[in-house]
């Protein structure tokens, strides 16, 4: 199991245990992390699972910031898109992400 921390806009931390090979969005939904809506269920079709990768982690694992073309397109539907923005349904959890910190935006839509 890999430990992931979601931090909401008020600074409240939600620590969850995620299985390798699943996605960050699934980990959030299974643990009912507030602010991750995931309307489309992981089809990269709604941009309601937007997260910001913690800057320290973006430095440690630069590939965490690599967005596919589809994901980049879908981010047009999100608000306050930053360099460290990702759709959590597109991040597959690997062992090296143990301890990963991501921030949940103020609002998905």
């Amino acid at each position, binding site marked *: 199991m890999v430990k992931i921390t979601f931090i909401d806009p008020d600074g409240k931390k939600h620590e969850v245990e995620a299985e390798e090979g699943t996605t960050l969005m699934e980990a959030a939904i299974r643990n009912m992390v507030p602010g991750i*809506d995931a*309307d*489309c269920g992981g089809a990269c079709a709604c941009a309601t699972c937007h997260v910001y990768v913690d800057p320290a982690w973006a430095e440690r694992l630069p590939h965490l910031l690599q967005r596919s073309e589809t994901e980049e397109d879908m981010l*047009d539907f*999100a608000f*306050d898109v930053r360099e460290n923005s990702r759709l959590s349904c597109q991040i597959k959890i690997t062992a090296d992400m143990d301890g990963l910190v991501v921030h949940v*935006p103020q609002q*998905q*839509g």
Partner: protein
Amino acid sequence: MPKQGATEGPENAPATGAAKVIETDALIIGAGPAGLFAVFELGMHGLSAHVLDALPQIGGQCTELYPDKPIYDIPGFPRITGAALIARLKEQAGLFDPVYHLRTRALGHETLEDGRHAVTTDTGLRFIAPVVVIAAGGGVLEPKRPPIPGLAAYEGRSVFYAVRDREQFRGRNLVIAGGGDSALDWAIELAPLARRLVLLHRRETFRAAPESVRRMREMVKAGEMDFVLGQIRGLKGGAQAGLEEGALAAVIAAHGGETFEIPAERLLLFFGLAGKMGPLADWGLKMEGHRFVVDPATFQTSCAGLYAIGDACAYPGKLNLILSGFHEAALMAHHAVSRARPEEAHTFMHSTSMALLRDRLG
């Protein structure tokens, strides 16, 4: 967006006084894949259905969010687009003559003395049915609203999510935010009407149809509209700008760490849609997050005769797959018929042995 051509009942008029009452075997809330297949499954058991949907066309997310996206896990279809799947489900459901009520939202619910359910809509309808099926997915798909403080005061006055009356943009400073087909189509359409039109988008790339992007760039070059790189941060207007409440003066945007203002009397926002469960969440049913808890043997919710299927339901091991919605529709219908027709003996039948299907389909 492909038009599905679903029928819209003549009773689909705005509410005027007393509700029009419609009695039916089953009311299905949501015309996505699960709701459409529920029409077929209920029909197989001899139950007729009315179907509500908030959107102007059937198909739910398949039509609204990903009509052209291929789906690879529908049994028997190695590859099928959202729009094509809905067209086939509509044809299949059509065998049992469902009545679709589009642009219609479910509002209130009550259980009647005889055990049937009454459901009211925002269009002034009152459905009475022994079986109500919530197939509402993630809820009503509504335009996404940016997290801007005080936004509500401007909505419907100077900030809009769709164009209903283009005249209100004539001679105005108009900002259109977004980078998809809706944003570009309306920018091209409204630029000649507006005093000055600014298209605001976060990057140089647009996911809209290449032809629209080409046309937009031509118009920018010709000075017929402006394109500004940036993301919306806030609004300026109302009393603070010496205007009446809800009147917009400027859009505050940011790009690359720089914040700036764009003069605007009207703002159109096109950031897609997101689901909101809305009034259904207040029906007093047992919920888990935004989903309705069901018994996975019957798909009945915590209220007898109220069922939930598809993405709207929750049970151990639930997968949000279209194919799960089909399975759930079949089990729901099998249980629902005993509730709708308690006096009749019910036997399980395979579709291959049903005379009606043979007669109609050969």
